[in-house]
């Protein structure tokens, strides 16, 4: 899931300062699940903005809407009839969704209502943790199901660096050393031989280093 966090309300207020009529768009996808961009958050944020602007003597009209997903054109289309009547769209979907709206409605300014986080998992209610960086070349079968690209602060590929202290990363004691986790797991699984089977060097061209990526599935086109 793509995670995100709320933007400070002052920042959003500054963003919407020039406008009197807005659409506030949530998304029923990942951001609903991680509780920053669902229908409830749309209502809460809209009420907050209205109250603040009311108090400042500059009322703001907000149209509240929640799309099934902001990253699929069919769902985004549902906004088309609406956007013309408003000055801007404030989206609390992830960065992908916001950009997609911007692309589809070139005449309308798009404002981000949240900060998009990472590809992660729900550790427990209210805690999320990063698990994947989308490097485009997965080797989890060799590393005990623990990703060195994500879990090691330096994305090292051949074991821990000198900063690994008692199982913790030197960046922050709260971060477990990814390589410690990998070695512990490989040992527990009896797969330490995998440690020697890692690639001599990781090709980063399939990752972000090769520039913005796209996927084309000929079979689906």
């Amino acid at each position: 899931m793509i995670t995100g966090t709320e933007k400070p309300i002052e920042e959003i207020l500054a963003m919407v300062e020039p406008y009197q009529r807005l659409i506030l768009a949530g998304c029923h996808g990942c951001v609903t699940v991680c509780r920053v961009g669902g229908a409830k958050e749309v209502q809460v944020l809209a009420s907050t903005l209205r109250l603040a602007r009311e108090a400042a003597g500059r009322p703001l009209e907000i149209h509240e809407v929640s799309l099934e997903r902001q990253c699929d054109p069919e769902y985004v289309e549902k906004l088309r009839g609406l956007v013309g009547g408003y000055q801007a769209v404030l989206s609390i979907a992830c960065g992908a969704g916001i950009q997609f709206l911007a692309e589809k409605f070139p005449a309308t300014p798009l404002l981000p209502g949240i900060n998009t986080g990472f590809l992660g998992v729900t550790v427990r209610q209210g805690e999320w943790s990063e698990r994947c960086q989308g490097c485009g070349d997965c080797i989890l079968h060799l590393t005990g199901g623990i990703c060195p690209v994500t879990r090691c602060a330096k994305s090292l590929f051949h074991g821990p660096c000198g900063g690994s202290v008692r199982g913790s990363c030197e960046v922050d004691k709260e971060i477990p050393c990814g390589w410690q986790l990998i070695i512990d797991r490989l040992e527990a699984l009896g797969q330490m031989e995998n440690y020697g089977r890692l690639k001599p060097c990781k090709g980063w061209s399939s990752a972000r280093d090769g520039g913005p990526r796209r996927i084309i599935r000929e079979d689906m086109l």
Partner: protein
Amino acid sequence: MTSALQSSGQPPTGAVLVVGGGISGMQSALDLANAGIKVYLVERSPAIGGRMAQLDKTFPTNDCAMCIVSPKLVEVGRHANIELLTHSELLALDGEAGNFQARVVSHSRYIDIDRCTGCGLCELACPVSHQPYFPESAESPQSAQPAEPAEQPASAPASPAGREGRGGKGGRRGGGEKRLIRGNTPPRASGHEHWHFTVAADACGACGICHRACLQQAVRWQKGERADIDQESCTGCGACWVACPEKFSAIRVSAATEMEKGVGAAVQARARLLRREFAEARGLGCIRCGLCVVTCARVMGVGALRLVEEGVEALVDRCQVCGACVSVCPVDFLSLEQVGSRPARPLHNAFNEGLNLRRPVNILYPQAVPRVPTIDPLSCVRLNSGACGTCATVCGTGAIHYRAEGRERQIRVGAVVFSPGLELFDARRRGEFGYGISANVVTSIEFERLLSASGPTAGAVTRPGDGRHPRKIAWIQCVGSRDESCDRAYCSSVCCMYAVKEAVIAREHDAAIEPTIFFIDMRSFGKNFDSYVARATEQGVRLVRAMVSRVFEDPLSGDLELRYLDANGQRQREVFEMVVLSVGIQVPPAARALADTLHIATDRYGFVRTDPYQPLTTSRPGIFVSGAVKGPKDIPETVGEASAAAEAASSGLAAVRGSLATSTTLPPERPLASGEDLRIGVFICHCGSNIASVVDVAAVTEYARSLPGVVYAEHPLYTCSQDSQERIRALIGEHRLNRVVAAACSPRTHEPLFMSTLQQSGLNKFFFDMANIRDQCSWVHADSPEEATAKAKRLTRMAVANAAAGEALHEQEFAVDSRLLVIGGGIAGMTAALAAARQGFVVYLVERESELGGRLRAASRGNDGRDMAGYLQGLRQEIEADSRIRLFLGCEVVAQSGFVGAFESEIAMPSGATRTIHHGAVLLATGADENRPPLHGLGELATVVSQTDFGNLLEEASPPLPERPQVVVLQCAGSRDPDHLPYCSRVCCNQAVRNGLRFLERYPQGRLDILYRDMRCYGLAELDYRRARQAGINFIRFDPAVNPPQITTSADGIEVLIVDPSVGQPVRLLGDLLVLSTGMRPRQNEELASMLRVPCAADGFFLEAHAKLRPVDLPGEGLFMAGTVHAPKSAPESIVQARAAVARATTLLSRKSLTMSAIVSRVDPTNCAVCLTCVRACPYGVPVINDEHTAEINPALCQGCGICVAECPAKAISLGRYDDRNIEAKIASFGSH
């Protein structure tokens, strides 16, 4: 019991009489009534609730006692199968089990309980605060009935001197001392809100007495002429009126609010107004309003006061010291010591432990059920001298009858539950602590009232002596417990925990408080108690192991010096600002007397005797016992026992269940036509004058008529009274109302009543809403009537909007399977299976092992020394002989689905096959294991054994011990230890003492040393502990952090080195055997917990639904537990729980169908994002993600708490009448106009 029934040959009566309306009696009553048994609940005091209602918070969860008990009060009060007989006593019981005749007297309250609405106006109007001195002849209220018919209101203004020979002549009649009461400044006559006095020319005798009485020179009079009052200079003090001789009665009163009711009511009305006007002038001197004189003469009929130039003159010997003049004085000018010569006798409020005063007519406490006042016949002026009668004049429903008499009746019942409760030790008997002498020494129950938000100080911790906030407070434990010198040798079980709790809560109220608790042993033996005490010490509660020898008061400061010996034997003195005595609990004399009347055997302390393995059965068949009258115990144990006693009492009545129960039939519901116009009826309640004296109810009613959809509005005096309910029913039909709104008091207490009226009128009960214009309006805005009226309009408008937005909701019914699944065949499971079978249900008893008996198969003797194997064998044979019990030995429950009333379980058979069974409830009794940590060579060396091993060894014919064995017992071996079991196992101390006594029985020459941390021999087990010390067992205390024992064990023997704190020296013990008290540990319960979808606590035991009030209920509906699966406990305690769990299950299984609440969460699958938020947020674990990829909430399991609705990020969940639609309607209405 069963045999007694068979012998009589007569069918039993399907009713049970419960003695005592405390938490025990209430729980028994509810469990019986919910299982179809008619209940007569007899309570001595005027209201149910008992001791628990007096408590502030409860350990170990710090739940507010009143908040958790008041729903039970309401439920008992409203239950159709419970007949509440408060202010009543059981006089005699004839007959035998199954067919008793009980003689019950209900003492007169002087209030008609059916008419009274509990508005409390009588208590507000009563001016008497002290026990008056009545004339000798009238001391007994029964002998002196009022001279005139009691039902007439007090004298009307036209004939002010209605009573012969009283009042009228003021101070001129009779002699005695006259005392002048004067302030620092002369009286400033105020004519504020004054009454108008005129002279009736035709009646005036021209005597001139009024002229002389008037201090304002307002009465003009010439000898031989009639008097005349100059209204310009009259201040309305009433001196002329009081002075006018009775035979003339020539002074007339007008412009007096409420005078049409009576003088008493009028005085109160004016006093209220003056109090508001002169709020700033309190204590600044007399304002010569004359209310004191009028009250004394015209209300009390005494005439001991007279207004004089300098102030007020009192005939101190004539004064009856009732306090009426003081209580009506709006500026606090008078005091009772000044007006009377005899000592004042304050009427102490017993519910607040005498910390404040009450009136002769009073409601026991604000949340009382029934919320009906009682008149105290000893102190009421009307009942004794015939004067006053103010309360009857203010009562709007005519509920007060001064001539009402008590009523005696015969009641036929099949069984009796005896639970009269406890009283507290009289701390005066320990004079060295200064209770009753030093004002700042209080008892623990008084301290509870000080902590209580509804107590005499509204929750402020202040010293009774001077009202100051104390900083250092000391608790002294075991006052009237563990004390042979005052014949209280037993332990009261609860004091250690309540003292710690009071200390914690006191610090919550005021962080400056430094609490210290002086104790002997910290007996925190219950579930989660030790961790509570640990948390308390972290939060600043200081624990000192010492018994205080004396308390000395500093007469100037009121501070208290405590003297004690510290752990090193050094004398210490320490000064505290307040001392709380942790008083023990005992059987009240009245309960002892009643036990004698009922022919129930008791012990020397008055506790009811029972067999440990028949813990609910008294010596008289058909009478069962529960609660503290059987031995000191805390609330959850009492609740468990109460359920168990209910089960035991109904066991012989299963065949006649439902025969005397009440059932109501409702008319069919009128469906609303689509598009039917709103027709709203609005009822604005006066609540006597509770609301109407502040809020202009007529204006609110007029306003309500203007609201959209409202077709009818009126303002009844009491909307909740029986006749108003009848009227609402008629109006619903007459005006075809389809919504009803009541603007009155609290929905918490009254919504069910109105809803049932709607149902009886064929209207869906959810077409109703309530606005609370009393508690939230008139009571809190008494000084701003205009704003209060505006607020009442707005609250009413919102309720109308909400009712308009209401939808018809329906409660679904579903059939109940009456079979019970019992998992676990130990003593709890076996007891439960037999009890449930006797209740008439089919039982599936599943035991994993190939034999019944559980852990007790390993024990040779029971708690009372009985042969355990024989006892278990008896149970086994009974189970095998009972055709209603299907036994599954060597089997396990592997899967479970369904919900309360309709469960389906799969049982894995020894063959490997599975079998599916259907049942309505589950009783979990899978037990615990003996803890056997590898400590000191346990399990390896023959010289190291566990306490259970030791008990068995002592039963062997020739134990492998020398002739004079030396045994060392180590308590808490692997218990209360973060490395092993962090909790206390509760049973080990008693087990060690019992085994020790048995050891000395067999080896009188042997030596036994017990190394302990705290001897937790709670309740009556303290007597055994005492016996053990006297028998010569050596107890050595250790603290792991201070003097841990050094233990060396080998195959040849053992050696222990320890510093004995009692002598302050190291000692060396050599022994043949080391016995470890290792405690109990939970079984691997995770799988079971996940299958039943209920939580286990961190320590591995199952969590109960509520630590205090639902001790045998699991958090899932229809799931119950008993025995050590809940927490460590003894076999008798497990038996009690087993029968309690059956009682709880019977309340479900005895029904043909169950009703699901209409207020349940519903998921709209089209919006569900399957985010799992509801699944994680639900405290009851109800929502699941189903095969259709959407969240699903089973309405039979949903508790309607609304948490998921608030949390759902996709707004896909809604909850009955609490929808966004409702809330938005209210908000929109709030902002409109």
